[in-house]
């Protein structure tokens, strides 16, 4: 059951994990862009952690606050896209105190659609959208959080393996064209880190 407690616990785990993942993400982003992705996520995580003690019961309002915290903490693309996805999920959950794990796929789809509209990237462009979509497909038809997580991680890994040889077509990394072939998209790796962080201790 996804309720305030579960949401808060998950967000706290993600926020913690970002402190460790930051260096790796900065370095990867630095090979293709401005090297700020880890910083973006650490800042976002810290802003979110401040919300947790007073997170509203209403899941929609809770996610809305998380989205806003993200937009405040930086101007980087990944931050804004994450906030956009969170806002979409917030709209879907507005007025509800709890959700079933079986709704995860639909929430991920809603987030993906909003992010696609915001960033004008297509599926297949080797961005965080592809990871999100892979996770949504893996979650489809599943209702047990550990199973969803395991399936989503496997699907994201497979997607990253498949897309790794492609050149980047979106964002700053596009400028480097061929140099991005053979490298993971930093946003996908960031999403995988978030997913992996969700494992309960």
């Amino acid at each position, binding site marked *: 059951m996804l309720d305030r407690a579960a949401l808060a616990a998950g967000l706290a785990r993600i926020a913690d994990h970002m402190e460790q993942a930051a260096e790796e993400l900065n370095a990867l982003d630095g090979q293709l862009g*401005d*090297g700020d992705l880890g910083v973006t996520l650490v800042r976002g995580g810290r802003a979110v952690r401040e919300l947790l003690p007073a997170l509203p019961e209403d899941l929609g309002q809770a996610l809305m606050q998380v989205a806003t915290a993200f*937009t*405040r903490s930086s*101007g980087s*693309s990944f931050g*804004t896209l994450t906030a*956009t996805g969170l806002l979409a999920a917030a709209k879907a959950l507005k007025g509800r105190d709890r959700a079933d794990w079986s709704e995860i796929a639909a929430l991920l789809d809603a987030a993906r659609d909003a992010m696609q509209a915001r*960033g*004008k990237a297509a599926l297949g462009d080797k961005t965080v959208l592809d990871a999100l979509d892979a996770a949504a497909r893996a979650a489809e038809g599943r209702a047990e959080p550990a199973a969803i997580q395991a399936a989503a991680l496997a699907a994201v890994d497979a997607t990253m393996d498949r897309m790794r040889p492609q050149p980047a077509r979106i964002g700053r990394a596009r400028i480097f064209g061929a140099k991005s072939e053979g490298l993971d998209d930093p946003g996908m790796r960031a999403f995988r880190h978030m997913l992996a962080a969700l494992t309960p201790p």
Partner: protein
Amino acid sequence: MKKVLNDPFAYVDEMLEGLVAAHPGHYRQTGAQGRVIARAQPIRPGKVGVVSGGGSGHLPVFTGYVGPGLLDACAIGDVFASPSVEQMADAIRSANGGAGVLRLYGNYGGDIMNFDMAGDLVAMEDIACTTVLVADDVASAGRAEAEKRRGVAGMVYAFKIAGAAAEAGLDLAGVTEAARRAAEACRSVGFALSPCTVPQAGRPTFQIGEGEMEMGMGIHGEPGVWRGPLKPADAIAGEMLDMLLADRPVSGPVSVMVNSLGATPPEELYILYRAVKARLEGAGARIVMPLVGRYATSMEMAGASLTLCHLDDDLERWLAAPCDCPFWRV
């Protein structure tokens, strides 16, 4: 890194503090984290607001062009980084005189997402927003993909013309259309001789050999069209003109901007302008209000850009209208 600064992470905030302290009659610092610069005087009710925003490190772009006949407010990011959604929303709010706000900025992905999302936020406060993107750098994409081009020095013309249209009392649709025509009218290309250093990164954005130049390089160091031995000024001017005229031939009056990317001194800009003028006038063009100086820079990068702004009667009138900011007065 040879820069005059204190803490690299305080670079932008200290810079803005100094900017406003030096020009209190022109600017006011406001908004989320003080990252919005607005005109010293609040917006006249009923006037359409014109806002811009983008990363720091390009003075006078963007912030410098806040002033009468130009922008109403500007959101400022870290060096070469987009401002946050909140900062942009605050810039829009401070430029709201009840007649709507035009978001006018360069074609960079991060800025677009953030300004769009900022628009969603202020829409809930009943502020009507429109968008015009400046995408004038012909070196960054071919004619077929002109909408993918980066925005560079052409922004200055767009700010000027949109600002004049707003000052003249046009409504939001009218100001937006003026800005769209201005952006459409501009073609730019630049070349770099040396890199610059983003303070927080601490090392140059790219490397370039002692006797080399790079034609078509972007203002953040994005790769250009060719890299090779430094050419004479007249040859550089001729090649840039060739690129711009191939994209759009001169058919009426043009304004010309010869712009330093930062370190290149005005002496060299005048040598370039001499060649540009001879060539354009030789082809029968009428040059209106040439601009030679530092209008859109990348801190201490050496190099220059050339912009042609193809004018019609309206654009020429708006370009000639009065404006006032510490970096440009007409």
